[in-house]
């Protein structure tokens, strides 16, 4: 197992246990400014990666979010069973705990195999403006992962609204594939 994989396990255990305290942060505590997260997300996993791998950056960030979404989904699924509203409520709870955003189901079209989830106060793009296209690939991937676990089917998630382009909220269409 690589060091990143080891660190991932430690982090996920802490998140899934609902822990808010962090060791070795006696003075500074567990919270950081949102700008720091956004610097890591939009520079570290955004512009700087884009400089190296071009459009591959989108896939990298989307798939990272998807992986986190699948971990969260698998953690809450046993408590929700086949109850979608309950499942999404549990996911919403984790998203609030981590200040990812306020997740809510906006639309469910079973016939079309489409779920639309809204993310108010999205951690990636709150306070960001002046971009031409949605930039919350991580959150789109997260939604894909969460819905994939519940439906046990492949999912293509597309961010259709983004606060950073002036929509005042983010929304993700999760297309459940055959």
């Amino acid at each position: 197992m690589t060091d990143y994989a080891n660190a991932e396990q430690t982090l996920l255990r802490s998140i899934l246990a609902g822990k808010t305290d962090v060791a070795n942060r006696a003075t500074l505590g567990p919270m950081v400014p949102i700008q720091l997260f956004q610097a890591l997300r939009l520079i570290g996993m955004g512009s700087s990666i884009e400089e190296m791998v071009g459009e591959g950056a989108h896939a990298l960030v989307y798939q990272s979010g998807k992986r986190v979404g699948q971990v969260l989904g698998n953690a809450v699924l046993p408590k929700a069973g086949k109850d979608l509203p309950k499942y999404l409520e549990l996911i919403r709870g984790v998203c609030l705990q981590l200040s990812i955003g306020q997740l809510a189901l906006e639309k469910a079209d079973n016939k079309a195999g489409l779920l639309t989830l809204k993310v108010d106060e999205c951690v990636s793009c709150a306070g960001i403006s002046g971009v031409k296209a949605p930039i919350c690939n991580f959150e789109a991937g997260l939604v894909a992962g969460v819905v994939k676990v519940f439906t046990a089917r492949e999912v293509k998630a597309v961010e259709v609204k983004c606060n950073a382009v002036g929509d005042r909220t983010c929304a993700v269409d999760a297309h459940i594939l055959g």
Partner: protein
Amino acid sequence: MAMTANDRSQRVDKVLGTITGLRGVTAAAVIDSDGLVTHVRRDFEINTDALGAAVQIAFGSARRASDHVSQGATHMVLVENKDGLVMLAPLAKGFVLALVGDSSAMLGAVRFEVKQTVPELNQIFA
């Protein structure tokens, strides 16, 4: 008449079937810009999420490296390995075609087939 998603899938599957019919080609996949494997033909198990992201990152890196030496558009990326090869070719709308071949794959034949296939796939995705 517009092509339905089902028609499109069938046509892509048929094209991928032709490619995997080539000697030594063990997998062929189409990957979208988010790294999602939208279509795949293979005769072995693949972690499609990891493959999709890796393909987009590898292709993006190659294209970006080529930008630095001002050689224009990237038409193909070839990875020659101890036991085979991986070939990547860009399609329209950020899709990438990925092929996997074992050591019996004939590089020239695979390359020729990919060049024939790209316009056909682009027509389907247009």
